[in-house]
């Protein structure tokens, strides 16, 4: 089944709004890293944060009064996706819009605060206001309440492949003809605790740059924000094939899983690939497979510019892929070594004739997923 992209929303460390972020990526801009410190850790980390101004236009809603950052990001992206599609959620269609939410670490800021109070001052210090915000589906619940969605609402948890798995789930849901739209949102917020955990896991580097497809993986930089894609049955950009995904038990198996997924997605001639390369061990497996299966495709990764936003990352990549096909341009790949054996460009480049793109998400915690985008020609639509 093919799904159309009816609208998109984007909140990133480079700002908010699909057009604005896209233009800044095309200009070769990179988010500015902020130092993050914490009272119980001596090490400071760098992360790409969403600027405060990016949420300035978020309309007030009682559900957002005490909500965590991740919920605000999700609300802003979700509202933009509906707005760009010209869809207004109202009581006549709220049963006909499903919400699938992709998340990895969830509301880590409130979760840390809630549990730290318990550790430092005992169970009596636990806040009943914070606890509900620690639940994985809190952001989805807030967004559903803001939009008035009363039908299917799902939160999917996983690694950075979860965004594409959420789109696959949306495709499964859309087999129900009662549904007109499925809003897929991915969101994440950054905290020192996450940086510390990924660093101890040897996946994070202390400061930018993110060097994609590097021979020696230096690690990633975490980022935050949200991406939203409103799926309908038709659109100018279609998602025409979604692989159900796979997982690797050991790092050495990642290449095999990637190979299967890419072979499945590349039955049609592929013009470009939006890769998930983020400076970690997984890049090498991705590089080898891309070189082997789609050697002629242009390859772009947004993560050197925007960082690794984990739960939001897959949605960000889909937005990049859709924008590249719609606008006929690819932004420059930042910090890529000239020796990378793939068709990547350090300069903004035209892909005006491109009509098929693969979006590939290789998670760092065993999950891999991919999908294919297709640009509809005007004659096909009309």
């Amino acid at each position: 089944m093919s799904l159309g992209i009816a609208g998109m929303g984007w909140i990133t460390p480079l700002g908010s709004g699909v057009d604005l972020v896209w233009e800044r990526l095309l200009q070769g801009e990179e988010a500015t890293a902020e130092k993050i410190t914490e009272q119980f850790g001596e090490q400071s980390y760098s992360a790409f944060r969403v600027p405060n101004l990016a949420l300035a236009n978020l309309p007030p809603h009682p559900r957002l009064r005490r909500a965590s950052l991740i919920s605000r990001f999700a609300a802003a992206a979700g509202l933009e996706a509906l707005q760009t599609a010209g869809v207004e959620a109202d009581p006549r269609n709220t049963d006909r819009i499903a919400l699938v939410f992709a998340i990895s670490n969830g509301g880590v800021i409130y979760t840390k605060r809630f549990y730290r109070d318990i550790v430092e001052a005992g169970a009596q210090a636990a806040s009943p206001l914070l606890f509900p915000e620690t639940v994985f589906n809190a952001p989805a619940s807030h967004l559903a309440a803001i939009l008035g969605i009363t039908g299917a609402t799902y939160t999917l948890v996983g690694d950075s492949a979860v965004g594409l798995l959420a789109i696959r789930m949306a495709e499964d849901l859309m087999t129900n003809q009662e549904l007109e739209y499925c809003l897929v949102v991915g969101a994440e917020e950054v905290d020192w605790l996450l940086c510390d955990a990924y660093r101890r896991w040897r996946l994070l580097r202390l400061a930018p740059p993110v060097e994609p497809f590097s021979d020696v993986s230096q690690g990633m930089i975490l980022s935050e924000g949200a991406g939203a894609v409103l799926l309908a049955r038709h659109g100018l950009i279609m998602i025409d094939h979604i692989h159900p995904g796979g997982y690797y038990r050991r790092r050495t198996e990642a290449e095999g899983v990637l190979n299967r997924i890419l072979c499945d997605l590349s039955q049609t001639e592929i013009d470009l690939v939006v890769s998930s390369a983020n400076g970690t061990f997984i890049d090498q497996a991705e590089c080898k497979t891309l070189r082997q299966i789609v050697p002629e495709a242009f390859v772009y990764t947004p993560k050197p510019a925007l960082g690794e936003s984990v739960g939001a990352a897959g949605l960000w990549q889909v937005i990049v892929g859709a924008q590249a096909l719609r606008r006929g341009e690819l932004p420059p790949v930042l910090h890529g070594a000239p020796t990378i054996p793939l068709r990547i460009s350090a300069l903004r480049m035209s892909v005006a004739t491109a009509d098929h793109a693969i979006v590939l998400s290789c998670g760092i915690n065993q999950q891999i997923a991919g999908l294919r985008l297709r640009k509809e020609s005007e004659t096909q639509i009309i």
Partner: protein
Amino acid sequence: MDQFLSKLPKSAVADRRNITARVAVVAAGVVSPLGFGLSETLESLQEARDCITRVTRFSVAECRCKTAGQVSDERLLSNRSKADRAQRLHRASHMMISALGEALAQSPQFKPELTIVGTTSGGMSYGEDYLRALNRRDSLRHSPTWIANYPAQKPVLDAQETFGISAPCQVIANACASGTNAIGHAFECVRSGRYERILTGGYDALSELVFVGFDSLQASTPEKCRPFDRDRTGMVLGEGAAILALENLDAARARGARVLAEVTGYGMSTDNFHITQPDPSGIGPRRAMERALQSAQISADAIDYINAHGTATPFNDAAEGKAISELFGRVPVSSTKSMMGHSLGAAGAVEVIVCLLALQHQFLPGNINFRAPDENIDLNVIANKARPAALRTVLSNSFGFGGTNASIAIRKFEA
């Protein structure tokens, strides 16, 4: 930004798909405070055992509630392999391995195309260990193990790896409705014809953060858990894992698989009233149950038993009780959480297995600790003891934080 849909024809025809497949449960496995495996679970249900005990995993000295339904570590960990990897896995992984192992033993040829599992907190206790060590500046020697085994998908992947399954997995975190949502979504995926075989279920292991969280909301009780009782004061938490193997009925028959029951309907709704409280009108649960009936293409009088969400909190039971009584009248109802506690992401899956056993062995599971009916809830509560009954179709409810409501219909298999 230009409109994506501006050039679309108004009369575009949607892709239509027949929804005709019947969905069989061909295998099941469970670990819960009621016991390890289907046999022990059945025995506990038929004897209406109270499996709630004092919490031993962490200090509850400062909490109102001191009890929970707990899975015995002694038994859970006794069968684990001596390999380093097995020693490092989270308890949740061991529960999943145990439940999946039982299910696959019943249907070794079952090769899933997809796994859909519900949870609320993944390997949360490892996250707690990590934060506590950081905060107290203790040794972080074990932190790689804690971090690697914390993600919610890890117990699912661990269980799959143990049995050589490589299906992609979707982990649904819809709070306390997660398990039912996972099974319901899996059911719809098989029924739509997109998949032939899916592994589904739910898991959750007790954690201090969650326990204290519910205590802070005063949702958990310092007394006994008494669902639908006039004097109910709240829930007790639990833990466990349950797995179901769902298969297209024709495919199951073709390979000669034993069919345990059929899943026939699923409904869900989102109730935007409050993040932790249901709409007192019961509209959320009601919509979920109505949609499950609609999906099963049956009327309310076809339901012989309802395994209620029944947390024993004043708000949940009032809203759910109102919805049940308005839709079903005097259908027998029980909340088996009274025996084993509320295992959150596992609850829906464990309770579907309770329904499956009730259908197979033709009995109504009891709602223990029940003393006096609530005059505001007109329900036919199966008080304190299990009793024999002729059951054909039953309903299982799960509702969660964030206003997620899910209901699933299961039918006795008749060839």
